[in-house]
C-alpha cells in the first residue's frame, strides 16, 4: 500500500515537472502567452475542437489509426542521417538530420494535418480550410483532404502564390481550391486573417486546420502534440545511433511547429540545449526581418498572446524573409514562453546566411533542403564551430527544397546557364 502511494506521488511529481504536462494550463496559457483572443462566435467551435482533441488523445483507436497512417502513408519513422561532410563545415561537430523532408508531401507538415483531418472526420465536418505561406501546409492539407474525401480551400497570400507557384499547382492537382489573398502584405499573415473570416462564417461545416503552433487554444497545444512524434522518434534514434543524447537540438522557427515538434521530445532533458533559428531577412537591425522573438515585442495576433512584430500603436508590421514559410510576424506562444523561461535560445539568421547553408548542404550531403530548414542549418554551422568536434547536434530537417529550386536558382544566378556571382555559389 505504502509503496503504491509513494509510486503515485512520484508519478504525479514527475508529471508536474514535465514541461509538456505543465504547459499549457487548462485555459491554453504558456506562462503569460497563448490563450484565446477571438470573436465570441468561435468560442463554441474551439470548445468543441478542444473536447474532440482531448478525447482522441486518450482513445487507443484514434492513436492506432493515426499510427497506421504514419507507417503506411507518411513513411514514418523518418530516418536520422549523420552528415559527416556537413559536420566538417560545422567545426567538425557530429551533425545529424531528422529527415522530415522525406515524409510524404515533403515536410513535417503532414504529421499535424493527418491528425487534424482525422479529428475533422470525427467531428462530422465535411470541409477543411487552411492558410499557407510556402505552400507546404497547404499541400499537406490538400493531400489529407483528398485522402479523406473532404472539400478543401487553401488561403495563400498573392505574393506567396507567385513565390511558390509549384506548390499552388500541387494543391490544385490534389483537388483543393487555392484562394489568393490580396489584402495587406499579401503573405501568410493575411492568408490567416482570411481563413479566420471563412471559419467564423462557415464554422458549422468547416474545420480550420491551422498549420502551426499558433492561433487560439487549443491549436498551439494540439499541433505540438501531433508533431511530438518528431521529438519522440529522434530521441530514441539518437540514443541508438550515438549512445547518448545530443548536446543541442536545432530547428528553424516561423510559427514554430517543426521546432516545437522536435523540442518536445527533449524539453525535459535539461542537458540538451534547444536552439530556434528565426528568419533574420536582411538583418534584424534593418527592420526587414521575420524574427518575432529576437526583434519583436509582446502582443496579441491571430487569437493568441506571444511575441509579434508591431509598431508603437500595436499595428502589425510586415515581415520579410526569403523563406515564404518563415515570413510571418508572429510566433507560437510556447516559443515565447520557452524563450522567456530560458529553456530555449532563439537567434536570427539572415537570408544570406541561410542561403549559404542551403548551398553547403546541397554540395556536402546531396540533400536539397527547404529554405526554411536552411535557417536551422546556418545556425547549426555557427553552433558547431562554437561547440567543437566532440559535440553532437541534431537538426530538424523540416522540409525538402524542391519547391525552392527557382528561388535558389535566382539567388545563386544559375538560371539559363548563368555563372554564379562571386561569393554566392
Amino acid at each position, binding site marked *: 500500500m505504502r509503496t503504491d502511494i509513494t509510486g503515485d506521488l512520484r508519478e504525479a511529481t514527475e508529471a508536474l515537472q514535465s514541461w509538456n504536462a505543465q504547459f499549457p494550463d487548462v*485555459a491554453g496559457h504558456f506562462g503569460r502567452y497563448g*490563450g*484565446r*483572443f*477571438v*470573436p*465570441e*462566435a*468561435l*468560442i*463554441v*467551435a474551439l470548445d468543441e475542437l478542444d473536447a474532440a482533441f482531448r478525447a482522441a488523445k486518450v482513445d487507443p483507436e484514434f492513436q492506432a489509426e493515426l499510427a497506421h497512417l504514419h507507417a503506411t502513408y507518411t513513411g514514418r519513422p523518418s530516418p536520422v542521417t549523420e552528415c559527416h561532410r556537413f559536420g566538417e563545415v560545422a567545426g567538425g561537430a557530429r551533425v545529424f538530420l531528422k529527415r522530415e523532408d522525406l515524409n510524404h508531401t515533403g515536410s513535417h507538415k503532414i504529421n499535424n494535418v493527418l491528425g487534424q483531418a482525422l479529428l475533422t472526420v470525427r467531428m462530422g465536418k465535411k470541409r477543411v480550410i487552411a492558410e499557407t505561406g510556402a505552400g507546404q501546409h497547404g499541400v499537406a492539407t490538400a493531400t489529407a483532404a483528398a485522402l479523406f474525401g473532404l472539400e478543401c480551400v487553401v488561403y495563400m497570400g498573392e505574393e506567396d502564390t507567385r513565390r511558390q507557384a509549384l506548390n499552388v499547382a500541387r494543391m490544385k492537382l490534389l483537388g483543393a481550391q487555392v484562394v489568393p489573398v490580396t*489584402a*495587406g502584405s499579401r503573405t501568410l*499573415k493575411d492568408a490567416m*486573417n482570411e481563413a*479566420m*473570416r471563412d471559419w*467564423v*462564417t*462557415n*464554422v*458549422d461545416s468547416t474545420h480550420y486546420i491551422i498549420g502551426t503552433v499558433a492561433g487560439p487554444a487549443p491549436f498551439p497545444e494540439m499541433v505540438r502534440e501531433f508533431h511530438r512524434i518528431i521529438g519522440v522518434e529522434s530521441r530514441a534514434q539518437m540514443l541508438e545511433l550515438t549512445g547518448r543524447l545530443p548536446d543541442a537540438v536545432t530547428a528553424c522557427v516561423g510559427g514554430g511547429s517543426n521546432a516545437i515538434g522536435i523540442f518536445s521530445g527533449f524539453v525535459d532533458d535539461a542537458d540538451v540545449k534547444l536552439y530556434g533559428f528565426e528568419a533574420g531577412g536582411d538583418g534584424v537591425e534593418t527592420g526587414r526581418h521575420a524574427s518575432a522573438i529576437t526583434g519583436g515585442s509582446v*502582443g*496579441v*495576433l*491571430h*487569437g493568441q498572446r506571444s511575441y*509579434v512584430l*508591431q509598431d*508603437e*500603436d*500595436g*499595428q*502589425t508590421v510586415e515581415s520579410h524573409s526569403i523563406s515564404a514559410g518563415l515570413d510571418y510576424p508572429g510566433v507560437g506562444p510556447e516559443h515565447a514562453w520557452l524563450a522567456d523561461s530560458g529553456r530555449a535560445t532563439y537567434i536570427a539568421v539572415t537570408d544570406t546566411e541561410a542561403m549559404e547553408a542551403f548551398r553547403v548542404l546541397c554540395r556536402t550531403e546531396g540533400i536539397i533542403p527547404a529554405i526554411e530548414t536552411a535557417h536551422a542549418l546556418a545556425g547549426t554551422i555557427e553552433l558547431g564551430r562554437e561547440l567543437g568536434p566532440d559535440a553532437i547536434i541534431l537538426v530538424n530537417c523540416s522540409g525538402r527544397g524542391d519547391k525552392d529550386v527557382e528561388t535558389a536558382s535566382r539567388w545563386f544566378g544559375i538560371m539559363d546557364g548563368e555563372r554564379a556571382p562571386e561569393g554566392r555559389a
Partner: protein
Amino acid sequence: MSKLHEAFAEAKAENRAALIGYLPAGFPTVPGAIDAITAMVENGVDIVEIGLPYSDPLMDGPTIQAAVDQSLRQGTTIRDVLETVRAVALTGAPTLVMSYWNPIERFGVDAFAGELAAAGGTGVITPDLTPEEAGDWIAASDAAGIDRVFLVAPSSTLGRIEIVSSMTTGFLYAASLMGVTGVQSVSQAAPALVERSRPYAKVPIAVGLGVSTAEQAAQVATYADGVIVGSAFVRLLLDAATPAQGVAAVGKLAAELAVGVRRTA
C-alpha cells in the same frame, strides 16, 4: 446614470430602439471622419461607435477592411482616435470605441481606459476579447468608469451567454450572424439570439452585423433595444465622389434609419 444608459432609456421611453452608428476614425481623413460622424448624430443616430483602425481586422469584411486600410496608410494613430472621440463627444452623443484588443494592450490597458474617459468616451466594444481573457480590462474599465461591451453570437450556448451577460456593461452586443461585417442581410438567428439572451441580460441588447437599410432597422427594432449599423455607412463614404457628398449620404442614411427604428411594427 451614464450617457449611454440615458440614450437607451430615452429611446425606450419613446417606445423605440436606439440607433447606433459605426464609422472608423481617420477615414476618409481624421477631420473627414469627424464630419461624417457628426452628420450621423445630427440626423438621428443616438449612440456612436468609432472604429480604431487595426492592421488585422479579423471580424471585418471587405468594406470596413478597405476603409481602415486607407486610414492606416494615411497614418492614423491611437492619438487621432482619441481626438476623434473628443470631437464627437462634444455633439452630446454617447461615444464608444470599437477596437481589436492588441492596440489597447499595446497602448497600456489602464492608460487607454483613462485617456478615453478623459476624452469624453463612454465605453469600448472589444470584438476579439472575451471575458475569460479580460481580467485587466475589467479592472481598468471599472477604474476609469467606462463601459466594456462584450459580444454574444448565434453559436453561443446559454452558458456562454450567461458569462458574457454578467461581464458586459452598457449594453450586450448581439452579433446577428455567424460571419464578418458587411453582409447585407440579418439572419434568422438574430431574434432567437436576443430571446435566449433576455433572461441573462442586465443591460439593453443591441443587434449588429447585417443591418444596412431602414427596413431592416425597423424589423430588428421590433425585438432589440438597439440597432447597430456600420458597413452601410462606410460603403457610402467609400463610394462618394467627394468628401462632402460622402457626409451628405451618411446623413441621409442616418435619417432613414432613424425613421426605421421609430416605425412601429
